[in-house]
Structure formats: structure tokens, C-alpha cells
């Protein structure tokens, strides 16, 4: 299967992989994004994955479910995912759509998100034996 690259910017900062979503999602982007992210997590052994959603204006339940499944996959690989900068509008619509929000970590700023990852890392101990 030939997948187009998602063109999502990814940077490794302080041992955390920061992925900045710069445009609204669709299925194709999600699929390739998931591939790339998981690949990158394995390469870098990052202990945290920060999904920066602050540039997004829209997110439907399907997009969110896709991202959530990705966080579950990342968790299986020993990485904590934190959603960063979800806007009030997106959150309110997600809740109205009755999306299952259990087990989701979120922060408003990248700085807070790093703190969250640190908290989890210290509470769980070293999560990724590779790092």
C-alpha cells in the first residue's frame, strides 16, 4: 500500500515527540500520520507524545476516534500521549457528540504538557527500556 506522507511536523524535544497538526484532519492524513508517528516513536524511543492541536478549528468524532486509537497504540509502545491546545469550540462539540473521553490526557500549553509527561514518567518509572 502506497501512503502519501501526512506532512505533519514532528520534532523531538526533551525526549518527547511533538507533532504539530497544522491543518484539519481527514482519513488519509490520519492513516499516514499514524504510520509515521508510530515509526518515529520506535526510532526515537520517546517517552511522551504531544499532539499540538492548537491550529485546528474543526475536529469531528471520527477524527478524534482516530487520534484516540493512535494514543492507545502509542500506549502499547510505552508512550504517554497528551493532547495540547484543544480549543473551547472543539471540546464543546466533542462532548456534545458524546465521544468517549476516558483515558485522554490533555493540556492547554506545550509547557504544561511536558509537565504532564514528566508526572506520568515519574509515577510509572522508566516506561521505555530502549531510552
Amino acid at each position, binding site marked *: 500500500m502506497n501512503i502519501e506522507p501526512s506532512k505533519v511536523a514532528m520534532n523531538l524535544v526533551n525526549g518527547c515527540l511533538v507533532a504539530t497538526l497544522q491543518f484539519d484532519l481527514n482519513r488519509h492524513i490520519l492513516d499516514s500520520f499514524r504510520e509515521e508517528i508510530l515509526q518515529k516513536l520506535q526510532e526515537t524511543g520517546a517517552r511522551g507524545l504531544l499532539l499540538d492541536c492548537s491550529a485546528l478549528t474543526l475536529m469531528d468524532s471520527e477524527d478524534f476516534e482516530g487520534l484516540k486509537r493512535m494514543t492507545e497504540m502509542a500506549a502499547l509502545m510505552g508512550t504517554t500521549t497528551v493532547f*495540547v491546545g484543544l480549543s473551547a469550540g472543539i471540546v464543546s462539540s466533542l*462532548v456534545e457528540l458524546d465521544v468517549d473521553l476516558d483515558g485522554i490526557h490533555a493540556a492547554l500549553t506545550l509547557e*504544561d504538557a511536558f509537565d504532564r509527561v514528566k508526572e506520568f514518567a515519574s509515577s510509572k518509572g522508566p516506561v521505555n527500556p530502549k531510552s
Partner: protein
Amino acid sequence: MTNVTSTEVQQLLADYEISNSDIEKVRMYGKILIPKLPDYVKHFYEWLETQPEFVEHFSDPKALARAQSLQLSYWKAFFEANIDDEFIEHRRTVGEVHARIGLSLPVYFASVNKSLIIFSERLYDKSLSPQDYLACIQAITRLIHLDTAIVVETYSRLTNQKISEQSQALMEMSTPVTAIWKGILMLPIVGIIDSKRAQDIMNAMLSKIGETRSKVIIMDISGVAVVDTAVANHLIKITKATKLMGCECTISGVSPAIAQTIVGLGINVGEVQTTATLRDALEMAFSKTGVVLRRE
């Protein structure tokens, strides 16, 4: 006859089965009554003075004189029976006035009924044949029904409008999200939570969190009258939403009664943090945001 009738007026006339001959009958009776209308006003206010509402609305003699002259022209127009847009519009104005001064509908209906009795009995000079008299009264009754319907329709529309404006104002007042400390928001909820209000609360909270970048929000529900399954679900939903904004929501003011109902209803509050008092919630919020209070 210059009867400019729009479709709306024609529809109304058809709804109340008012034919042209009915209108003729009203006018025929009007020939007898229009000269006697000042007598009608006299009779009518003799009755109205016995009503408790009289003092409330007509204690000012000027207002009374004005109401009387308006009433005179109202019934004059009625018996001339030129039912056109202007006629209907005038009836709407009457309804608006009644709604504005808060005259109750029962008093209005009683007045209309009283007027009908005065017209058909007290002021009747017995100059018509019994058949004509009967037909006239029937026609007048129909036209009065039409009149009443327009007035009441306007009245209830305005009253509903007033109520919806008030509830809108109430909604805006009912979500006072305040920043009480750096990074700590507080929202006291008083009254009843329905899904509309829960939505308002959530939106107000989320936008405030986005604005202030707060880490903790305290929702005080000690003023909430009833907590049932629906309300609890709304509260849980709100806490989940704030969590997505990276802000932890603590529900404070859980009274013994509320705690009992929640457990009794078997509601799973999950990871929602709850405290009995606002004080505990505030202490928790301080420790989460790293605030240390110290007495000097």
C-alpha cells in the same frame, strides 16, 4: 363599500364564518348602538369599578379618561365593521397595550362578555324584529370572537416573548465563571440544571479556561436544588470537557443528601473529584497549582 381586504383578513373572516351579510347585520345594529356608546361606557365602568383591577390600572383620572375615549373609538370601529388590515392592526395594538400593562386575561374576557351583555340587553331599544335581532346578535358575537382572538394572540405572543427574554437574561447571569486565583477558576451553580443550562455552563467554562489558561476549576454545587441522573451526567460531561482543555475540575459542595442520591441512583462518577466543602476544594486547588499560604 371600500373594503380593502387582504388575504389574511379574508382568512380570518372565513375562519370565524363571518359573511358579508353578518357584517351588514353588525352595521345595522350599529346604527342603533353607535349613538348610545357613551351610555355603554358609563355602564361598563360602573361594572369595572367593582373589580379589584380597577384601582390598579385606573387610579389616575387622566388614564381613565384616555382609556374611555379609546374604548369609545374601539367599539365605534367595531360597529362600523370595516374589517381591513387597519382594523386588525388596531386590535393587535389593543392586545399589546393589555400585555404591557399586565391586564389579566380573565379580566379581559369578563369585560368582553360584559360588553356583549350591555350591547345586547341593556342598550337594545327593541326596534328590530325578533329574527333580525337574533341574526344581529349572532353576527356581533362572531365578530367579537374574532376580535378577542386577535387580542389574545398578540397578548400571549408578547407574554411569551417577555418570558424568553427573561430566561435569556437569566441564562447569562447563571454562569458566573470567575478567576479566584492565578490558574484557579470558580463557578458557583445555584438553582436547577437542565441540559440547556449545562451546555451554557460548559461553554462559559471552556472559553474562560482558554482565556485564562487555568489549571483547576472548582464547580460549587451546594446551591443546586436537585441532583438526579440527568444532572449528574451533565456534571460528569462538564468535568470531562474541562479535562480535555488540560484543566482539572473539582466539584465541591456535595451535601450528604446529594451524596446519598448519587450513590442511591447508582451513578458512576468515575474519576470526578468531589469534596464536601468549597474550602477543601480550594485547598486541593492550591496544592495542585503549587500555591502555599502562610500567615504573616
